Structure formats: C-alpha cells, structure tokens
C-alpha cells in the first residue's frame, strides 16, 4: 500500500530547508500540532480515495482487455481508445498518490518520526499500519471526533501510573522481592536444581537483547529467531497471510519469503536492536511464537502468543489468538508463565521466557509426563489435544541429577521440561 516515495527519513530533522513541493513547505515546521494532525488525517482520507480510484481503474482496464479479447475485430479500436484513456488517468492517480505519500512521510505519519520531535503538545501523529488501519492517538484533544487512544496505550499508561503510585505509597511491597520473606520460599523450590542457581550467576549481569538472542540461537539450532520493529512485524504478518492463502506447496517459495524477510529485516538483528519491539521465534513446521517487548529495544517481554507456521493474517501478533485450539491453550498457559518469569526475576525474564518457548518444539511429539500419551480427549473441553502445558517452575527431578555431573554452563535442556495435558497438570503450574 505504500507508494514508492523516494524521500528518505532525513526529512525528519525538519531543520534543513525543505526541498518539498510548495504545498507542504511550511507545514512541517510552522503548523501547530493539532493542525498537523488534522492535515495528516485529511491527507490520509485523500490517499484512501486515490487508492480506491486506482483500484477502479485497474478493474476497468481488465474489463477492457477482456472485451478486446472476446470481440473479434469490430470494437477493437474502441477498446484501444478506452485503454489509453484509462492509462492516462491511472498515471495521474499514481502521481497524486506519490505526492500525497511524500507529504505524509514528511509530516511523520508513516513512520513514528514525529514522536522524536519535541513540542507536540502531547499529541501524536496518526500511525498507518500496513494493513490500512489508521491508529490515531490523541491524549487530550478530540479532533473532529476522529481521534481515539488505542486501548493498549491506555492500559499501558494506567499500569505505569499504578506501579509508580505503588512505589510511592507502598515501598515495602517492592522490597518483598529482594527481601527475606518471599525469596526464601522461591529459593527453596529452586534449590533442588543447583543448575538454576548457577545459571542465575552466569546471567547475573543484565544481558543485552542481542546477547540473549545469540545464546538462544546456539542452544536451539532448530529455532529461527528474528526481531522486528512493531510496524515491520505487521507488514510481515500480512505477507504471511497472502502466502498462506496461496497455499504455497512450493518449499522454494517459503524459503524466498523467509529469505527476503531475513535480508530486509535481518539487519535489524544487528543494527537496530535498540528498536526491536517484536521477536519472532519460528520452529519450522511446528509453531511460530511472537513476543512483544516494551519498551522497544529493552529486554522486558510484555506479551507472547503462539500460532501455526502456516497461519497468516493480521491477528498474528503478541496479543492475538490463533485460530487453532491447541495454540490457543498454549498461549493461555504462556501468559501465566510470562507473569511468573517476570515476577521471579525481571532481568532474566526474557531469556527464561524464550528458552521456555523453545521447549515447545516437541509440542506434537513429546508425551505427557503424567499419563504418557500424546493425544488425549480433554473431557471438559471436549477437544483432542496434545500436552499443551509445559512446566515453567522447572521443578523436575531429572534436571537436578544431571547437574551433579555436568558443569553448570548449560541451561536446563528443553527435553527435560515436562509436559502435561490440561487435565493432567497436578499443581497449577
């Protein structure tokens, strides 16, 4: 949907004299933020209209071609005329769209650049997701009834306010984690694995995102890990849907898809790791997990979700739910695991979470540790499911017997993490 706008984001600085077309010359710098937002919304609606015109024009062209193919010789000249007329109007539409796109990009709508500019009165430019959804965010003002804060942002703000207040008014609650009471109990449970303790020592220094991902790649060669900026992930999600619809039986196409996304976004792994907001963990042919980080570039996971590998569409994101029951249940359990990891140790939470996610590579092959079967009919849900609950408290005795002999440099091997059916999980793990 993005036009081939040639302008780079160097226009973000807005200090250099703009070389833009005359219309938007003064816009970016002299307009007050509410006016900027209003202009941006108006340009977006215009862009939508132009795109609709282009679609109609394409339909008309196709129709003309069909007519020309059907009719023998009579109306050929008419069809040619029609095609020429359509072609010129399409060209005009495309030019309009390019101009609009340039204006929008300069005003910071299609990237998040305006946020980095100061003096925005608490307003943010509307963000356009690649699937066409416009996310307009207004904090204090309503602009002609068009703006609305997204629920996610509101919740995040509320949570931040709450934790800030908690820190102010209940300082002793904060000390609980590092104090004697709670941590003692936690240590008692974990002491049965000397491995976990030594793993903590090893990871005591807060690791950067790229370090964590590199370690993970070494430990789980099956899994493919990519990082994305948030909008880039939405683009990829819609790419996934188009390839799923075509039902690409061609493994070559799948490779090309992965390769192109890798070369395009793979550099994000190294270069812009400080902007990575979405981690994709793909175990080929088994599952795809999406983890969201907040804030971008940090190592704080705030959501995780599981999907099938050939599932596609705009619901593929860290807060979306899969269409398949098995992955829905895994996601539900993963939410609990995420909360647990965050509570236990905020610094380690991401690497613990990612390792735990990778343990699901045996989702369809590892039998339940309690009933020793793979597929079982869950009576309450009336569904046939494999063991979807994987222990996240890591209270398996097999691990501790391993630690005595092996040097404590490797983390708990994923095969030793026990799996349970929903009805088989003994304690609420």
């Amino acid at each position, binding site marked *: 949907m993005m036009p081939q706008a040639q302008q780079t984001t160097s226009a973000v600085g807005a200090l250099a004299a703009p070389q833009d077309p005359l219309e938007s010359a003064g816009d970016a710098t002299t307009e007050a933020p509410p006016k900027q937002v209003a202009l941006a919304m108006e340009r977006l609606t215009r862009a939508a209209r132009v795109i609709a015109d282009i679609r109609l024009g394409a339909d008309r062209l196709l129709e003309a071609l069909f007519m020309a193919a059907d009719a023998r010789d009579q109306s050929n000249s008419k069809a040619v005329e029609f095609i020429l007329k359509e072609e010129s109007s399409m060209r005009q539409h495309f030019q309009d769209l390019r101009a609009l796109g340039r204006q929008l990009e300069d005003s910071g709508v299609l990237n998040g650049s305006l946020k980095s500019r100061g003096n925005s009165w608490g307003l943010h430019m509307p963000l356009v997701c690649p699937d066409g959804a416009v996310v307009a965010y207004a904090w204090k003002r309503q602009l002609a009834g068009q703006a609305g804060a997204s629920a996610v942002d509101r919740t995040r703000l509320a949570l931040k306010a709450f934790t800030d207040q908690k820190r102010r008014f209940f300082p002793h609650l904060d000390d609980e984690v590092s104090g004697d009471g709670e941590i003692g109990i936690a240590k008692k449970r974990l002491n049965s694995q000397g491995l976990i303790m030594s793993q903590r020592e090893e990871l005591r220094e807060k690791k950067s995102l790229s370090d964590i991902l590199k370690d993970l790649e070494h430990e789980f060669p099956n899994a493919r890990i990519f990082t994305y900026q948030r909008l880039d992930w939405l683009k990829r999600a819609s790419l996934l849907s188009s390839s799923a619809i075509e039902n690409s039986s061609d493994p070559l196409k799948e490779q090309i898809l992965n390769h192109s996304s890798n070369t395009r976004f793979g550099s994000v792994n190294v270069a812009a790791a400080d902007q990575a907001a979405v981690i994709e963990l793909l175990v080929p*042919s*088994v599952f795809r997990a999406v983890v969201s980080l907040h804030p971008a570039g940090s190592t704080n996971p705030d959501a995780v979700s599981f999907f099938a590998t050939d599932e596609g569409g705009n619901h593929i994101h860290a807060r979306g739910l899969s269409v398949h029951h098995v992955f829905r249940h895994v996601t539900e359990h993963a939410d609990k695991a995420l909360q647990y990891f965050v509570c236990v140790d905020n610094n380690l939470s991401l690497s613990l979470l990612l390792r735990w996610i990778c343990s699901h590579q045996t989702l*369809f092959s590892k039998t339940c540790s309690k009933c020793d079967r*793979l597929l079982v009919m869950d009576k309450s849900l009336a569904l046939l499911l494999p063991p979807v609950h994987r222990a996240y408290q890591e209270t398996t005795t097999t691990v501790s017997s391993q630690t005595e002999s092996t040097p404590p440099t490797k983390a708990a091997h994923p095969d030793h993490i026990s799996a349970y059916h929903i009805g088989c999980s003994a304690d609420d793990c």
Partner: protein
Amino acid sequence: MSSQILAEVCQCVEGFGSAAKEGRWRTTLTIYRPVARDPSSTATSAPVPMPGDLPRDFLGLTLHDRPGAYFFILRHHRLILQADANVQSLMDKLQSYKARVVLHFEGFQYQLGDFMLRVGKCVQSHADTLRGIMMEVEYLPLSSIDKSRQIMEDFLDIWQDAVIKKSLPGQFINVELNFADYGLQDQYTPQHTALQYATCIVQLMATVRS
C-alpha cells in the same frame, strides 16, 4: 455394507462431544480407459499409439474443497498431475479416454476441535449400491507430514477404540502411503489428498476382490 453402518459411524463421530456437523461434501474419482483409435479414420500420417503404450490405470479426481482443480494419477508410473478443472471438457473433446467407472465419495463433514473429519460412503454413479465407507481426517494446525505422524497415529488409535465399541461388521483400515515415490514433499498439499483417495480406492477394490 449398508447405510445403517454409515449412520452408526456418524454417530460415533458425534459421540466425541463437540463435533460440529458442518455440511456435506463430495469427491469424485473417475477411472479412465483408453479409447482404441480406428486406424482408418485418421487422415494424417501421425503414428497411431498402440494399445500397449497407453496406461491402464489412469485416474482422475476432483476434490471437494478444490473445485477449480483436477488431479490425474498414473499409479504404475507414480505420477500425479494437478490441472485446471477445464481439462475435463478438453478430455471430452479429445475423446482419447473414456470414463470406465465413476465413483463418488460423499457424506458429512465434522469439525472436532483442531481435527476436520469427513465421513462418507463410496457409491458408484448411476447405481446406488454402497461400495464402502471411508473417513478423511485432517489435522489443521500442522502441515508437515513428518511432524504430524504421531498425532495422526494417536487419533487413529482413539478412533479405532471408539468404533470397536460399536461392534460394526468390518473395520477401518489405514493404508500408509509413501509420498516421496510420487515426488511429493513433506509439506501437505491437495495432491497428497488426491493420492490418498486413489490409494483408498485401490484398497477398497482389493478388499472386495478377496
């Protein structure tokens, strides 16, 4: 072999609890035989194919969920081809092959959680005799045959247990097929489904003969 058995099998599926009946489905399988060309009628000097050259077990298949595609299978040569549905009209015009037997697989479709089950009977067209009862099982979250092997085996075990309780005459047989022989990959495609139907028919005929 009666439709009552089919009703019992359907009941078995519904007995699983949350199986939602979704509607009817139909897959058609055609067995072709070559038409021997009359040498005197050909005006050109093109070589007349000898009857021995033409394949004997030429199968054509339409799948219920892919009305736009037509599948050709040559079992002895291990070939499978996916073509557009219009190829049938082409075949009619060419008159090089005649449909010897046309079989319909039709029945009901159920959604059981992540499994899609299609239970149906096999009837010959223009004759109402029931040739057999078959079931197609699809596990939706996975597309890799290798990864889903265990799940499918477990499902079959559960299914056989449920069916045995009904004490029906006859039993479900699952024939394993080596897809690699036909040059197909691990990623499941409609071509795999077509092959499985063909194998099913062969199995059916073998059972009937014996």
